[in-house]
């Protein structure tokens, strides 16, 4: 009897300390965010630092983003056509593909892939820099790791993700076009004109870009914090990498809901 009681008590205590731990991490992450914003001057004075990181986060993610976008676009067109033709409006397939990509899938899927590809790389890199005392060494050289390591990566992520999301949408639409027009035989003119008539620059495209900027801030910041906060051991870094993917994905989906509810009138 006491054993069960102890077990329940232990579980509760675990839950409580986990919760407190999360709150603590949220606070520490917020502090890192503001520290980083304050010491971002260096990143803009020496923009080459950011360019280098845009290469390793953005350019290195190009292949995975392009290939996924192409397939997502093709699948959307196939599935959409199946349903739309039941209602005799298969020309609307362009609208369906474009709206789905520009409003939701472009920013969201890009952010999820970005968290998996670039986010984990950032976490692992910074975690390893910490584990091998590179960050300490920098501090001891009177160079702030926040302004030299964290800030350039942050701005690079914020620049790269919207670009990747725009590419995702565009390539996805091309993928949809290839399935809809040459393969299924929807009229090309109807495909584009219906799309143009129903996709709004301000409400759809700009809102999509806004979403991807917000996701860029969230994903990059989470990856940076997890790396910066990782226990300086091999196990600590690998756990932090996993947490980056989990936390970023949840954050992206939750933020997407919040942003969408603001954007839809």
């Amino acid at each position, binding site marked *: 009897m006491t054993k069960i009681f102890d077990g329940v008590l232990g579980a509760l205590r675990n839950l409580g300390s986990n919760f407190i731990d999360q709150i603590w991490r949220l606070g520490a992450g917020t502090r890192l965010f503001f520290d980083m914003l304050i010491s971002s001057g260096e990143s803009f004075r020496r923009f080459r630092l950011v360019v280098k990181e845009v290469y390793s986060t953005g350019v290195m993610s190009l292949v995975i983003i392009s290939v996924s976008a192409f397939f997502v676009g093709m699948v959307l067109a196939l599935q959409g056509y199946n349903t739309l033709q039941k209602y005799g409006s298969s020309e609307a397939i362009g609208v369906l593909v474009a709206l789905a990509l520009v409003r939701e899938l472009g920013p969201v899927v890009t952010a999820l892939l970005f968290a998996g590809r670039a986010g984990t790389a950032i976490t692992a890199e910074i975690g*390893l*820099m910490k584990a*091998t*005392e*590179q960050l*300490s*060494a920098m*501090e*001891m*050289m*009177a*160079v702030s790791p926040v302004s*030299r390591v964290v800030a350039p990566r942050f701005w690079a992520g914020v620049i790269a993700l919207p670009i990747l999301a725009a590419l995702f949408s565009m390539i996805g639409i091309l993928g949809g076009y290839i399935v809809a027009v040459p393969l299924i035989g929807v009229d090309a003119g109807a495909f584009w004109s219906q799309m143009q008539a129903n996709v709004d620059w301000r409400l759809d495209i700009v809102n999509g870009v806004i979403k991807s900027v917000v996701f860029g801030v969230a994903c990059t910041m989470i990856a940076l914090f997890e790396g910066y906060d990782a226990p300086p051991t091999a196990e600590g870094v690998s756990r932090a990498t996993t947490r980056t993917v989990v936390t970023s994905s949840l954050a992206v989906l939750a933020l997407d809901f919040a942003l969408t509810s603001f954007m839809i009138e």
Partner: protein
Amino acid sequence: MTQNIVEIDNLSFGYKNRLLHKGISMSFPRGKVVAIMGGSGSGKTTLLRLIGGQFKPNKGEVRVDGKVVHKQNDDGLYQLRRKMGMLFQQGALFTDLSVYENVAFPMRELTDLPESMIRDLVLMKLNAVGLRGAYQLMPTELSGGMARRVALARAIALDPDIIMYDEPFAGLDPISMAVICDLIRTLNDALGVTSIVVTHDVEETFSFADYIYFVADGVVAAEGTPDDLRQSTLPFIHQFVYGEKDGPVPFHYPAGDYQQELLGSKND
């Protein structure tokens, strides 16, 4: 100008409830090589971090050049750190930069020197550690001893007044060890710096140090020149210097009665 460039005054420091240092006082005179020795986990490395201002002491203070380290704001701390060079245990070279860029790093970050002058300085520093020929290599292509020498070149890049060495011999073969040993002494004398060496390698340390502090149980257990310590009759020093397994530092972690634990535990 005080005679001691670094002074540690009645310093206490600990994580959570466990105190690592309980009132340590040390002084490091200019131009000398001073070693801090002690068993693993006795908080030697932490002492270096306290000198560098990466941790704040619970009690007491560390003064560098007469300034209390933990009372400095960020700018003041960075000013103090520019007087220090630190060699980390595994070198801590930036893995994404070449040997050349690693040594150039502090110059690029903290000075506005033109590229041609940086190049000359980097090659000079690398020459001082005998690795001028390796400037194109990446850190992953270096052996442990070479990595540490590059890190040393980086530590002296901006001509510091104090060089701190964190376990400079850990994991090195005897030849690399001898090289580092020699470098510590020659750099100290050639550059006129003060060296603080944290280590537990008795033989090497005794060969180059001017003065040695022994840290045990959070206090300074003994201090003196190498010759003084060799003749020390303190049991702990004797055990450490001559590397005996059992002595005042017991082989066993404190535990309950052995027999009792083996035979009695099942009846719980």
